[in-house]
Structures are given as C-alpha cells and as structure tokens.
C-alpha cells in the first residue's frame, strides 16, 4: 500500500531549462482503501525553481494541506514523487522548513522567542556566536528586534507568526514551505506580514512555496501561481505573474495587470472540475 511507483513520473514542461529545487511529479494521495477510498489528490505535477516564490491556490477543500504534508515528508503519497534538490523525499528533509498556519500551537509556549528559534538549530553544529548571529538576523528581518526574551503569550498573533517565520529563516533552508500562514490574522497584520515575506525573500534569497486560499495574496506575492482544481485535485493552470519585483500593497494592487490576473484566477477556481 505504501509502495511508491515511478510509473506516473512524467517530464515537466520546465525539465532541463531551470535549476529546480522542488519537483512534484504525478503526486497522488488516496485515503482509505476499497469501497471507502477517497482520492484527495488525483494527479499533481509542478516544480519550483531556485529562489522562486510560488503560490498554490485552489478551491476550499481541494487538499492543499495534504499536498503540503506530502511535500514536507510528513505524509507518504499513494503514488508519484516529490524530489528536493534531486533527492526523493521520504521523510522530513533536512533542507526544508515548514511554517504552519497555527502559529500558537507550532511555537513552544515554554520557550522564549530566542529559545523557539534556537530549537531547530540544535541539530546544526553551530558555534554559539554563529547561532546568536543567525537568531539576531532572523529576528531583525521579521521586525521583532528587542523581543527575543519575550514568551509567545506576551506577543500578538501577528508577532507570533513572525517568530515562526524567523525560526524557519534562522534554520536557513533551501526551501520554505508555508501552509496558509496568514489565514488567522487580521487584514492589516496580514498585509504587513506579506511585505515581511517579500523583504525576507530578498534578504535571504530563499525559495518559497506558499499555500493560500487568498487569490489577492497569491498574485501579490508570487512569481508563479499554481491553480488547483477541486477533488480529486490536479493542476488546473500555472499562471506566471509578470509584475515588477518591487511590490506595494497600494500601487501594485491598482495596476491593470494585477486586476486582470486576479480575475483570471478567480474564474479558473470558480469553474467546476471538468
């Protein structure tokens, strides 16, 4: 049941053209078996290039979280494969960091901001000075300077998610996976956190795969948007976002290009699965 086959492996459109960090090929996930089997993910293939920012959007209940768990090695796909830097993923890979939607449960309430960020670094053989420098830089880049000795409960929700982002950045992964990270913060905080992501992306040059249900957010952040269909999930379309790299919450969102892309993706998602 857990055997994975490479039968579904098919070359992606970009094979050989780009330096792919993450390749998802013919990914399928079925829950249960026999008559009660539910196909969560039908057939999903796409890739993420080095230093690219890719957003994944889809109708609600389309298995975005399942997809992300398969990509992060927390769940084994029924068929197909995920490759990270060419190596098949069969458990949580070392060069990957995951930011959860539920920051309040993903941060350890008994550890300070510094303690939380330092926790995954214990596995990396860092000198104390290197570790402190990484923590300092990560904390600075998410705008939490001066809060390293605070406990999560002393921070607002948006600040707690900044801690989770800083923890992922200090880990210095090749790819950062984010599961609807801003779904439970208010609109203003959300806009601030989106801009934090654009800033840290520039600063760290990290590759980001960002799952969201918010189409505006996807277009605003991404270089490319992977649009998923309803269950059984497959890739409906991959939309390239040709907006300038410097983005602004007001001026970018009022451009004709942004409005057009946003409307295009809305229509694609609303359309019933073929």
């Amino acid at each position: 049941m857990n055997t994975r086959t490479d039968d579904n492996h098919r070359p992606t459109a970009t094979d050989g053209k780009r330096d792919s960090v993450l390749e998802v090929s013919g990914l399928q996930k079925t829950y249960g078996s026999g008559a009660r089997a539910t196909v969560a993910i039908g057939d999903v293939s796409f890739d993420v290039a080095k230093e690219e920012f890719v957003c994944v959007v889809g109708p609600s209940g389309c298995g975005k979280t399942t997809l992300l768990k398969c990509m992060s090695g927390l769940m084994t796909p029924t068929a197909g494969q995920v490759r990270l830097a060419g190596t098949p993923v069969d458990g949580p890979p070392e060069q990957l960091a995951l930011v959860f939607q539920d920051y309040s449960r993903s941060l350890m309430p008994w550890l300070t901001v510094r303690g939380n960020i330092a926790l995954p670094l214990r596995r990396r053989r860092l000198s104390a000075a290197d570790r402190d420098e990484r923590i300092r830089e990560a904390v600075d880049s998410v705008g939490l300077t001066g809060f390293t000795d605070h406990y999560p409960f002393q921070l607002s929700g948006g600040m707690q998610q900044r801690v989770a982002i800083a923890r992922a950045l200090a880990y210095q992964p090749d790819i950062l996976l984010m599961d609807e990270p801003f779904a439970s913060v208010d609109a203003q905080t959300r806009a601030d956190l989106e801009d934090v992501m654009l800033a840290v992306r520039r600063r760290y040059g990290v590759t980001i795969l960002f799952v969201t249900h918010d189409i505006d957010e996807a277009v605003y952040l991404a270089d490319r948007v992977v649009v998923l269909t309803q269950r059984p999930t497959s890739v409906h379309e991959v939309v390239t976002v040709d907006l300038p790299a410097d983005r602004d919450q007001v001026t970018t969102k009022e451009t004709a290009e942004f409005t057009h892309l946003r409307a295009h993706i809305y229509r694609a998602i609303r359309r019933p699965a073929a």
Partner: protein
Amino acid sequence: MPRAHRWLPGTVAVIGVLALLEIASRTGLLPARWFPPMSDVTGRLVGQLGDGRFWTDLAQTLQGWAIGLLIAIVVAVPAGLAIGSSWWLYRALRPVVEFLRPVPSVALIPLAILVYGSGIETKVFLVAFAALWPLLLQMIYGARDVDPVALETARSYRLRRGDTVARVLIPSVLPYLATGVRISSSVALVLAVTAELVVGSPGIGRAITEAQNGGDVELMYTLIAVTGLLGWGLNAVLRRVERPLLHWHASHRLEEVA
C-alpha cells in the same frame, strides 16, 4: 489591584468567621461544652507549638503523607505516560483503571490491617493507593494531550529524539503533573489522618481520637484546625514549587495579571 491587597478579602473573611464563632460560644448560642470559644482554641494552638508530643505527631502524619505520595508518584508518572501514549495500553487498561479508581481507600482498611497491622505500613499503603489514581489519570490525560502541531513541528525540523522529549513532551506534560501532584497531595493527607483515626497509627489523627476520649474538646478542635492548616500549607508549598516551572502556563499567568 495592588498585589498586597489580594490577601485582604480572604483575611477579612477568616477573621469574620472566627469572630462569629467566638460570639456564638460566648453568648451561649452554641453550647460552650461542645463548641469552645475560638480564642481558647487559638490559645491552645499556640501552646501546642511548645509541646514536643505535638511535633512528633505532626512529623508522623507528614511522614505517612510523604512516603505514600512518593510511592504514588513513582508508580503513576511512568505508568500514566505509558498508558496515555500507547493506543493498546490505553484501550486495555482503561477499564481496569475505571474499576479500581472508585474503590474507596477506606474500604481497604481491613485488608491493610490484616496484612500490615496498625503501624506506618498500613498508613503508607492507604495513602499510596488513594493518591495513585488522581495522578495516574492526570498523567494519562497529559500524555494524550500533547499538541499534534507541536509534534509535527518537531518532526519537520528533524529534532533529535532527546530534544523532542526534553523540550516538547516533558514541558507539555508538566502542567498535568503539577495538578496531579496537588490533588494527590490533599487526598494523601486525608488518608493519612483517616488511617490514624480509624486504625490508630501514630500521628495527628490518633491524637484527635485521644483528645476526644480524654474529653479535651479544646485540644480536639485545635488538632482538627492543625490538619486544615497542614493541607492549606502543603498546597501553598506545592504551588510555590511549580511556579518557576510553569510561569508560562495560563494558570500562573492569570495569577500574575490578577
């Protein structure tokens, strides 16, 4: 409200109740023969503090409490964690626990006397049996309540097993341990005094029976008050011990804010 004022309502209430009892006894509203005035009881309490016999009794009660509670902790903590974190053990042992838990410890007194006689062993056995269950249940709940998101975070960052245990599992179980120990501690005290009263093991409980037999109602009240103060004091000590370990937890945070 300033910190110092937090004690005010409680202190006023205690003094008020003592004053009411004093008035009731002095005016004859309560028969003074069975309800001596509180000022006399308080006087006797101060007097007892200079009595070596009193301190021996107190030490014996505390000894039964401490050994019994320690045995309960040593058994319940590993057993509870194992049962709570294993699907099989949980399914298998839950009915057993649910059957044994409601058995009142005092129902085992005849058995304990048969096996151990009327000394410290009987007291310790009863205390340990009664104190075991609340702590065991707390540990089972604690092991089952470790946040799956926290565990996935640990997995996705590939934390070492030791780091996951020391920095994720143990801290999340700690609040349950603290609550369990406090509940078990008060149960342990009740059973220590019960064993002394019923079985006649040496301690404050037996001293209460002796005071009653000797017709010294004042001393009897004094010793009853001592058992209450003892329970209150032990609870306060345990709260104090857990505070630095659980300062991040909601129960202690609220205390800081209030």
